[in-house]
């Protein structure tokens, strides 16, 4: 019988080498030396098209050269799923972004976030959305950006249609009239553009309804407050002043293309679209035209001085499993991103930061391509932004039900009243009373 080609000694040596390699690989979690250089890892997504992460890291490192920020990139669509898996496996980064409010409670209740109340305490009152991260008096994350929804409008198409641009205090009734006038004016001018584009997301209807209706509560199981907003949207769809929901879903319409290639004169969308449109116009992906943004139409004249809109903050939290030696640096980074300096860095690339002070506003409107008119400035600096996803363990499940309700109504499969009554019934039986 032939003897093995490998001696026992060789096998033993190989095993020791393999074990030592594994042990070396685990060595990156070693505690940082006090006062020495610190490397913090942070979650991110789509870094090529989302410059905010690198911008914040560079701006912070310029002031704190002893701290290095390294990124762990996740898939943008499956961000929460992948991050959850990493947190459960103990391989998540030291700092992680809370992409939306819907999942914040999962991380907080799962004890995956460090108490950062001391950081929150040192921040000024002008940080929008900070309260969303407070549970039982303890703050678990800080917001660094706070998007809110505006009404984008194409100034050239308004001129072509002979319609007066938004005043900044439009009510929904005034908006409806303007859209009807735009449709007629654009048709008369021979323009193929529609008066409005409403994207297929539930937010486009439900977000503003929840924010603007007094007493509206996502967790109440009563969704009657959505009715006037849906009736308006359906009326516009039926009148043909905007692309209908069925066409938008079956042809997978992109809202960027609808507004950016002048196929719609107005569009309700989040503030992140400002940076996108500026970049697309520079690259030629969007056409060159005059545009601006106005506050979202209001329920009544009471929102004139401080328009009510909606949007979720994007926050940053510290992994509860972070090495103690890195905690101070991590908290320092949190204070930076939520503070004025971090806000200025974000504003300088067209991102809407959570902190809105005068220097931040100046930095934002100093970006080449951002419309600098008074109405756009007012819309950016003055608004009351309410959360689309109020922090609750039930929000994700309720939003699922409301998403299905949205498609049932907008596809005209179910009448508004019937769909909303059914949504309430489902919310109570599947979520509110069953847990």
């Amino acid at each position, binding site marked *: 019988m032939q003897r093995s080609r490998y001696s026992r000694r060789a096998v033993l040596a190989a095993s020791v080498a393999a074990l030592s390699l594994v042990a070396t690989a685990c060595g990156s979690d070693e505690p940082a030396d006090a006062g020495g250089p610190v490397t913090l890892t942070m979650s991110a997504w789509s870094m090529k098209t989302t410059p905010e992460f690198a911008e914040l890291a560079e701006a912070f490192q310029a002031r704190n050269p002893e701290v290095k920020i390294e990124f762990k990139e996740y898939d943008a669509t499956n961000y929460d799923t992948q991050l*959850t898996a990493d947190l459960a496996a103990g391989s998540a980064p030291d700092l992680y972004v809370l992409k939306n409010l819907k999942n914040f409670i999962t991380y907080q209740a799962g004890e995956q976030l460090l108490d950062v109340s001391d950081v929150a305490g040192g921040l000024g009152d002008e940080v929008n959305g900070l309260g969303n991260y407070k549970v039982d008096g303890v703050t678990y994350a800080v917001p660094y950006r706070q998007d809110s929804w505006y009404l984008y409008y194409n100034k050239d198409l308004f001129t072509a249609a002979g319609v007066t641009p938004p005043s900044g205090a439009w009510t929904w009734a005034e908006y409806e009239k303007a859209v009807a006038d735009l449709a007629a004016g654009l048709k008369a001018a021979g323009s193929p553009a529609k008066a409005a584009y409403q994207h297929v997301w539930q937010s486009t209807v439900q977000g503003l309804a929840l924010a603007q209706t007094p007493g509206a509560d996502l967790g109440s199981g009563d969704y009657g407050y959505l009715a006037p907003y849906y009736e308006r949207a359906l009326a516009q769809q039926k009148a043909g002043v905007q692309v209908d929901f069925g066409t938008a879903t079956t042809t997978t319409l992109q809202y960027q293309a609808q507004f950016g290639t002048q196929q719609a004169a107005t569009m309700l969308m989040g503030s992140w679209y400002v940076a996108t449109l500026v970049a697309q116009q520079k690259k030629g992906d969007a056409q060159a035209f005059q545009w601006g943004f106005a506050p979202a139409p209001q329920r009544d004249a009471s929102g004139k001085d401080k328009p009510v809109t909606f949007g979720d903050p994007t926050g940053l939290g510290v992994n509860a499993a972070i090495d103690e030696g890195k905690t101070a640096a991590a908290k320092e980074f949190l204070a930076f991103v939520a503070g004025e300096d971090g806000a200025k860095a974000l504003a300088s690339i067209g991102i809407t930061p959570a902190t809105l002070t005068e220097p931040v506003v100046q930095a934002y409107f100093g970006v080449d391509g951002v419309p600098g008119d008074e109405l756009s400035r007012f819309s950016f600096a003055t608004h009351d932004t309410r959360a689309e996803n109020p922090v609750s363990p039930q929000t994700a499940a309720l939003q699922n039900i409301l998403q299905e309700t949205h498609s049932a109504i907008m596809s005209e499969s179910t009448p508004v009243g019937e769909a909303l009554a059914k949504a309430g019934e489902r919310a109570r039986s599947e979520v509110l009373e069953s847990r």
Partner: protein
Amino acid sequence: MSTTTVGGPPGTGADRTKRWYRARRSLQGVSFVLPNFLGFGLLTLGPVVALFYISFTNWNVFGKAKWIGLDNFTRLFGDAGFHRALLNTLYYSAFHIPLTLAVSLGLALLLNRKLRGVAFFRTAAFFPYVTSIVAIAIAWNLLFSRDAGPINQILGLVGVDDPPGWTASSDWAMPAVIIVGVWREMGYYMLLFLAGLQTVPPELHEAARIDGANAWARFRNVTLPCLRPTTFFVTVMLTIGSFKVFDLILVMTNGGPGQSTLVLSQYIYQKGLVENRFGYASAISVVLFALCMLVTVVQFAVNRRRNA
């Protein structure tokens, strides 16, 4: 190496050598199977066992799972969303299985002849199966578009005044998904039937022809009985595949409009990965597993009775 005598008296050196020889052969066999079995155990068996355990718990992935007994299962009885997903899954399966079976068998019979360009047509029929499901969904959504889609335009040309809304209509979304599902999978099952058709002895057809049997009679009395093992395999695979349908529906309709195309797999995804209710999602997975198991066992029993 010394030679051994087989069949020596027990307890002798020859017997010990024989046992050692057998043990060595077994070890060699196990060493071949072990890597694959380890992978199966770690990546399939382990998670399945864990799934059964998690289905009896309340767990949001972080921390310890809380044992709640049968609560998740009893809750399913009153869950309207689960009922709807279950009914939709049965609806999809009830149409998708026979339609795919009929179309793929028809295609196989058609392309089993010695025709010019038959290889091209076989490839063309198989092509949808290897195409990206996202691309398929987007292309079919465009075809199904209510106003601008070519399907409704053709229907308009042939006199249909009120064409269906397809994926934008709660009544027509499921038929649309079924059509695409059948179209996508027919090529794969056609290939299996083509392989099955090669096993049909030509002399049986010849004998039937001499006896005066027409084409239908030959198909019914010769081809179909000979194809029974293939048909059984295809039916079992189609059944399991239909009960587990997920990606096509997710991309085409995302379960909508409303809940009109919400199926069990998507409901599991919603409860588990969107709402972080892993215990509840696992309970639904167990029900789906039991359903697949039940239908498959029934199919095996029926098949065994037929073969008896």
